[in-house]
């Protein structure tokens, strides 16, 4: 039996396989050094970076719920200066042999532009920027841009002007029609779209009557959101020409294959990493097994190949 090719293209970049880590769930990569062979991943999407250092939200920040996890970290990050210079961040990411995508965010459009421009000047080792317009856990910025078509278009246009690095826009599921947002960001220069971010959610400790996280509500991820994410990826992939990165509750290769069949060119593993850091690798080998079992030599031959009468 011949070799199976797992390579996929996201715009101008080639991934050795379609399995990425989702932003916010894999730190800056260095945290998993020695535990996960980073060079076997399709790519790493690092935690959101803003122009300024950010404390993030007060604690508690996460709550385990049935079939998922609610988080409200609040995009804590060291800020772009430290991200570029400190050994734990970009300098480390440049030493590893895998694709690197930097998630960026800000409170204003100028903030997004500033981070993008700084990274444009430091683009060695960066394969793409993921514009985060979908974080539900910060008061300013984030999802405000991701739930207003006009603002979403403006952010993406402004970032597009600031950099020629390939752009991914991460979409929020908390909109009337996610397809409209996908089309909008593509029209404004996004090379790829990624979806979905988390759903606003709440969990209450009935003994203390207090919410389980400090900001009362947070974003739900994990197994429970997978069928919804899959439907959104299916809708978006049929509606736009550019590649889609699918994510939301992927825990197994079977989950990932569903996303590929629904039209995702690549997928991201997120919350599952907290349960087992080896999940991305298990997904990669499981996809490979599936392709062999079905006599498919090239992964691209299953992308979007959901069979609908």
């Amino acid at each position: 039996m011949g070799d199976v090719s797992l390579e996929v293209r996201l715009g101008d970049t080639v991934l050795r396989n379609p399995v990425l880590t989702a932003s916010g769930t894999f730190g800056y990569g260095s945290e998993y050094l020695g535990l996960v062979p980073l060079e076997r991943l399709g790519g790493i999407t690092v935690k959101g970076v803003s122009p300024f250092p950010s404390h993030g939200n007060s604690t508690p920040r996460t709550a385990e719920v049935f079939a998922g996890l609610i988080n409200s970290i609040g995009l804590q990050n060291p800020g772009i200066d430290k991200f570029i210079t400190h050994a734990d961040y970009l300098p480390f990411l440049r030493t590893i042999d895998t694709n690197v995508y930097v998630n960026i965010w800000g409170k204003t459009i100028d903030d997004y532009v500033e981070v993008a421009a700084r990274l444009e000047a430091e683009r060695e080792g960066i394969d793409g920027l993921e514009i985060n317009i979908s974080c539900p856990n910060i008061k300013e910025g984030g999802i405000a841009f991701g739930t207003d078509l006009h603002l979403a278009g403006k952010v993406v246009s402004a970032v597009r002007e600031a950099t020629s690095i390939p752009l991914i826009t991460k979409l929020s599921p908390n909109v009337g029609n996610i397809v409209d947002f996908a089309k909008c960001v593509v029209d404004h220069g996004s090379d790829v779209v990624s979806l979905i971010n988390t759903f606003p959610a709440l969990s209450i400790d009935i003994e203390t009557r207090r919410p389980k996280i400090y900001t009362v509500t947070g974003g739900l991820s994990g197994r429970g959101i997978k069928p919804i994410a899959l439907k959104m990826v299916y809708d978006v992939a049929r509606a736009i020409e550019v590649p889609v990165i699918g994510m939301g509750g992927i825990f197994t290769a079977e989950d990932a294959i569903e996303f590929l069949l629904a039209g995702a060119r690549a997928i991201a593993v997120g919350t599952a990493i907290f349960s087992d850091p080896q999940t991305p690798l298990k997904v990669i080998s499981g996809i490979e097994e599936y392709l062999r079992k079905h006599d498919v030599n090239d992964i691209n031959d299953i992308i979007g190949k959901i069979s609908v009468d």
Partner: protein
Amino acid sequence: MSPSKFQENAVILENSNYRGDYFLITFSAPKISPHVLPGQFVHLQLPHSPELLLRRPFSIYNTNAEAGTLSLIYKAIGAGTGALSILPRDTVVNLLGPLGQRFPQATKDQRIIIAAGGYGCASTYLVAKTAESTGLCLLGARNKSDILVEDEFQKTGFEVQVSTDDGSYGHKGRITELLIPALDAGNGDTVVYACGPNAMLAAVGRLCMERDTIAYLSYDMEMCCGVGACFTCVIKRKCDSPDGWEYVRTCKYGPVFDAREIYWESDKSN
């Protein structure tokens, strides 16, 4: 930074009720065990429990590097520890470890005081076992049945004093009421190692800082990833930022912190 961490399918050798709600579990974990340093923890994935998404962190109570084993003491009080408590011998359990920063080692000339509240004894026992000098171990709890591993501490050569909130064993009152005279009896170089509820750690830290005594505090925080990726388990640490503090990840930079590093509520007014 710990020199090495592993992900290992450990095998339960023993998982027995220690007393009341407390359990002692011993694993065969030959990769992790030889590398464990006092104060470090393992991050445990509960098998057969997909609804329990997150791993659970546990301080490592004891190890036997030659036998390749490690032991934990835990209180079966929640969904995770409840599920753990019914796992039989020979069950395979996936562990990440050893994780986190160790309790810094005292020198031969330093006097050691261990202050352990409740199952905080589990994270401090290895300090006593591996110490080059001896000292005093203070065990505090609500009542007699919550005083654990007293004999084991005694076997290390440490003097043991006990306090209970209800007076059912030892001194009636707080562990800090034993700590104050112990600190004041010292003539200089003392190092305090503490683990217990956050309020106890705050009290121990304050008493030690008032006396210019070094205190290493081990924090029990809720965690997700255990390796520094998710930013769940953050704690305020002093730094040069405009606010005077930053959130640092307990799993990566802790769980042990020097009391002088912590940004205390009382630092706000300074």
